[in-house]
C-alpha cells in the first residue's frame, strides 16, 4: 500500500495542530463567503416556487443538510475503516469529531423538513420514505455518539464507535431500501417533494450554499479535532504533574 507523505505526516498530532491552525481561518472564511452568497441569492434573489411560494426557500438549508449528514456518516465510516486498517491515530479521533456534527446536520434536516412540511403538506410529519430514512440516520448518529462516550477509556470508545459506524454504513442501504419498501406498502402514491427537475435559478444558490455548508462541516470537524487533541495533551500533562508531585512528597 503506497501512502502519500501528507497522510503519514499529519499522523503526528503536533504537525496536525500546526497545519490545521493555518488552514482553519481560510476554511471558515470560505465557508462564510459561500454561505452568505448562497443564502442571499436563495433567500432574496431567487424566485419563489410557482406552487409552494416562498416556503421553497427552506430548501437552501434543508437539502445541503441532508446531503452532508449522509456524506458525513460515510466519511465517518471511511475514517473508522482507515483507523482499523492503517492504525492512523487521528482517524480514530475523527470518528468522535464527526459524529456530533453529522447528527446536528441530520437534526437540522429533520427540523427544516418538518417546518417545510407544515405549509406544503399540511402536517409536521409524514412517514415518507426520505424523512423516515433521515430519522433512522439521526438515530444511527446518536448510537455512535453514545457508544463513543460510554467508556472510561476514550480510545476504546473511539474504536467501538468506529466499528459501529462501519456496521451502520453497511446496513444503511438496506435500511433505506426497507423503509422505502415499507412506505410503498402502507402509503401508495405518497406525497413527493417538488420533483426531480429544478430550475437553474434555484440550482445555483442551492449549490453555493451546499459548498458553504460542506466547508462549514469540515471547519467544525477540524475545530473539534483540535480541541480533542488539546484535551488529550492536557490530560497527559496533568497526569505527569500529579506523578511528579507524588514523587516529590
Amino acid at each position, binding site marked *: 500500500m503506497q501512502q502519500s507523505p501528507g497522510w503519514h505526516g499529519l499522523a503526528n498530532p503536533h504537525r496536525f495542530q500546526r497545519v490545521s491552525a493555518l488552514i482553519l481561518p481560510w476554511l471558515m472564511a470560505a465557508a462564510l463567503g459561500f454561505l452568505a452568497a448562497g443564502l442571499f441569492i436563495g433567500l432574496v434573489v431567487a424566485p419563489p416556487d410557482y406552487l409552494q411560494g416562498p416556503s421553497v426557500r427552506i430548501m437552501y438549508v434543508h437539502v445541503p443538510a441532508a446531503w452532508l449528514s449522509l456524506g458525513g456518516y460515510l466519511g465517518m465510516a471511511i475514517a473508522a475503516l482507515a483507523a482499523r486498517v492503517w492504525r492512523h491515530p487521528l482517524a480514530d479521533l475523527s470518528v468522535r469529531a464527526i459524529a456530533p456534527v453529522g447528527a446536528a446536520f441530520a437534526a437540522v434536516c429533520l427540523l427544516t423538513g418538518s417546518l417545510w412540511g407544515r405549509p406544503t403538506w399540511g402536517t409536521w410529519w409524514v412517514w415518507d420514505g426520505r424523512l423516515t430514512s433521515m430519522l433512522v440516520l439521526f438515530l444511527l448518529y446518536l448510537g455512535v455518539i453514545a457508544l463513543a462516550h460510554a467508556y472510561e477509556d476514550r480510545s476504546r470508545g473511539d*474504536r*467501538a464507535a468506529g466499528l459501529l459506524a462501519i456496521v451502520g454504513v453497511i446496513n444503511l442501504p*438496506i435500511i433505506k431500501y426497507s423503509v422505502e419498501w415499507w412506505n410503498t406498502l402502507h402509503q401508495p402514491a405518497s406525497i413527493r417533494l417538488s420533483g426531480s427537475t429544478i430550475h437553474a435559478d434555484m440550482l445555483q444558490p442551492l449549490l453555493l450554499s451546499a459548498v458553504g455548508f460542506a466547508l462549514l462541516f469540515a471547519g467544525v470537524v477540524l475545530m473539534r479535532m483540535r480541541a480533542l487533541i488539546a484535551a488529550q495533551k492536557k490530560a497527559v500533562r496533568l497526569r505527569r504533574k500529579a506523578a511528579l508531585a507524588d514523587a516529590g512528597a
Partner: protein
Amino acid sequence: MTLPALLARLVARDLARAVARPAEALLPPLFFLLVAILFAFALGGEAGLLARVAGGVLWVAALLASLLPVAGLYAADWADGTLDQLAVRGIAPETLAAARLLASALLLLLPLLAVLVPALLLLGVDPRGAGPLAGALALGGLGLAALANMVGALTLGARGGGGLVALLLVPLALPVLIFGAGLEAAGAPRLLAAAVLLLVALSPLVAGTALRLARG
C-alpha cells in the same frame, strides 16, 4: 480440534450453562408474553382490533425480548477471564462469537416459539393459521440474535446499560422488523431472509473485532 468440533463444544457449553440456570433463560419468553399482555390492556380487550395488530405487536415484543440477554452475552466470559483463556489457546474471538451466535439464537428462538401459541390466543388470533408468522419469527429472531451478538460485544464494559443497547440495536433491526411484519406483501419472506443472512454473516466478524477491542 477441528473448527466444527470446537464450535460444537462452545455451543454445548453455552447451552449447558443455560440449562443449569433455567430461571434466567426463561425471562425473555416471559417478557415476550408480558409485552403482548400489555398491548391487550393498553388497547382494550376488543378481539377484532387485537387480532388485526397481533402480527406487529408480536414483532415488537420479539424485538424487545431480544434486547434482554444482550448485556449478559459476554459479560461473564470477560469478567472471569474466559476471553483471555480462549485467546491464549489460540482460539479466535470470531470463533467464540460464531458459537455464541448459534447458542444465543437457539436460546432466544426455542422458548419464544414455545410461547407463541399462548401469545396468539391472548391476542385473539387462531394459532392454526400462524405457520408463516412462526417461520418468519424464527428467521427474524436469528437476525435479531445476530444483531444482539454484535451489540453485546461492542458494549462490553460500557456504561449506559439497557438504554445504550436499545439505541444501538433498534435502528439496525428496522429491516428485519419491516420485512418480518410486512410478511403478506410479495417478496417479503425473501427480503427478510436476505437481511437476516447479511446480519448473520456480519455478526461473528464484528463481534470478534469488538471482543479484541475489549481485551485491549
